[in-house]
């Protein structure tokens, strides 16, 4: 051991340590600036460190993801459940909003026509397959107080009449059908009156026809037509449609008009049935 301390090897090592201490002391005296050697190392290694750092972080993340797979899966499941709950709430909200809107419309109708007794808003279950006149089925029937030949409407206007009623469903014949005649008049003039009846050619375009008009009528485009109420089947003064075009019949004795129904009959989702109103024709016992 004593020989080692006296040896040249020890002296060299000691000199090296002293050198390192010297370097350290020197770097302390630089006041925060790196020494030249350190700068050179940094400069040379910078691109490699950058790349290796990116790769390292990716590997760490991957390993971390694998290690935390269960946690992430659970978190994902929780989030999915939350999304599902929120969607459910949103759907309920939409339903309530629709219901609220429908009730608001019904209140409006009741205020405008206090004599009406109406059903709740009922859903259109489906349109009759391949029917050119767009008859459809609704989800109310005799159990809800519905009878045959009651007017069916939306808040925009008259849609048609119930024709076949079962316990829970009813079939509605629309104003596009040639089998339904509705006496109407212009809202602005009692003299301009006629019968609304669908035709095969107009039903395809979602239109109906106003017939038996006086030749000297004063109907104009977009004029509103309302029910006359004389038949006792329909309430008086309910909107039916707007005039699209007025023309003369081929016989020259009367005029006709093409009418756009107030309700979009091809895209109905809910309607209501007017079960009673002033002037209603009583059922035959």
């Amino acid at each position: 051991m004593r020989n080692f301390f006296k040896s040249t090897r020890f002296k060299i090592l000691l000199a090296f340590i002293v050198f390192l201490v010297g370097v350290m002391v020197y770097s302390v005296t630089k006041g925060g600036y790196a020494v030249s050697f350190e700068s050179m190392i940094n400069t040379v290694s910078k691109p490699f460190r950058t790349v290796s750092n990116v790769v390292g972080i990716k590997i760490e993340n991957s390993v971390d993801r694998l290690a935390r797979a269960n946690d992430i899966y659970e978190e994902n499941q929780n989030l999915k459940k939350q999304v599902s709950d929120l969607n459910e709430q949103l759907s309920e909200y939409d339903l309530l909003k629709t219901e609220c809107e429908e009730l608001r419309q019904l209140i409006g109708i009741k205020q405008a026509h206090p004599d009406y007794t109406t059903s709740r808003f009922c859903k259109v279950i489906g349109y009759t397959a391949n029917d050119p006149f767009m008859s459809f089925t609704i989800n109310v029937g005799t159990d809800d107080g519905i009878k045959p030949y009651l007017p069916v409407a939306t808040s925009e206007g008259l849609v048609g009449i119930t024709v076949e009623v079962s316990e829970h469903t009813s079939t509605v014949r629309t104003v596009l059908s040639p089998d339904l005649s509705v006496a109407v008049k212009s809202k602005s003039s009692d003299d301009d009156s006629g019968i609304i009846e669908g035709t095969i050619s107009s039903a395809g375009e979602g239109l109906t026809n106003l017939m038996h008009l006086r030749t000297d009528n004063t109907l104009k485009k977009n004029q509103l037509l309302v029910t006359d109420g004389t038949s006792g089947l329909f309430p008086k003064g309910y909107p039916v449609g707007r005039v699209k075009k007025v023309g003369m019949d081929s016989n020259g004795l009367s005029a006709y008009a093409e009418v756009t129904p107030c309700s979009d009959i091809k895209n109905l989702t809910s309607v209501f049935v007017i079960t009673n109103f002033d002037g209603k024709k009583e059922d035959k016992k």
Partner: protein
Amino acid sequence: MRLKTTRELRILYIKTALRWLLYYIIIFFGFVFMTSGTWLKPIILIPIALRISINNNMYASAVTGAVCGFLIDTACEKLFGYNAIILTVFCIAVSLIFEFFLRNKFVSFWIVSAVLSYIQCWLDYTFYYKIWNYQNAELIFNNYSLRVWAYTVISSVFVWLLLKIINHFLMPKKHFSIEETIKHSEQQNH
């Protein structure tokens, strides 16, 4: 020659029950399809009923025709029983024709299906529009009846394929019972 054992008999019953269950599930979905949406749709229950009738006796065909007819009446809001009568007659006729005159081939089915669905469309047009003298009644035939007929003929291709798959797996093959086998052997020996 295969013998009809008790086990095979049980399998035959199960297969037959399953086959008819699938037939009626298809009929039900055909009905649901016909009642959905506002577009013109094929009367898909016609080819279904006809295709079922090809492989079955006339009693089963008649019942199937009636069921499909009632469903068409409901879907199309026709007089309840109107299409049931038409389809029952069609199905019995098809069952007999394919038993005695025609082979169970796609082309035969397709032609028969096209002819009978055309007759159904024509009867529908005649009884529901033409005889009531609606103005421009022919428009109904050109714009609705013919289009529905064309869709029905096209849909019959898919119906054929679907029921062919079911029949391939579940239609019973010809078997002989032990008694029939003995009798057959004796006849051959003589």
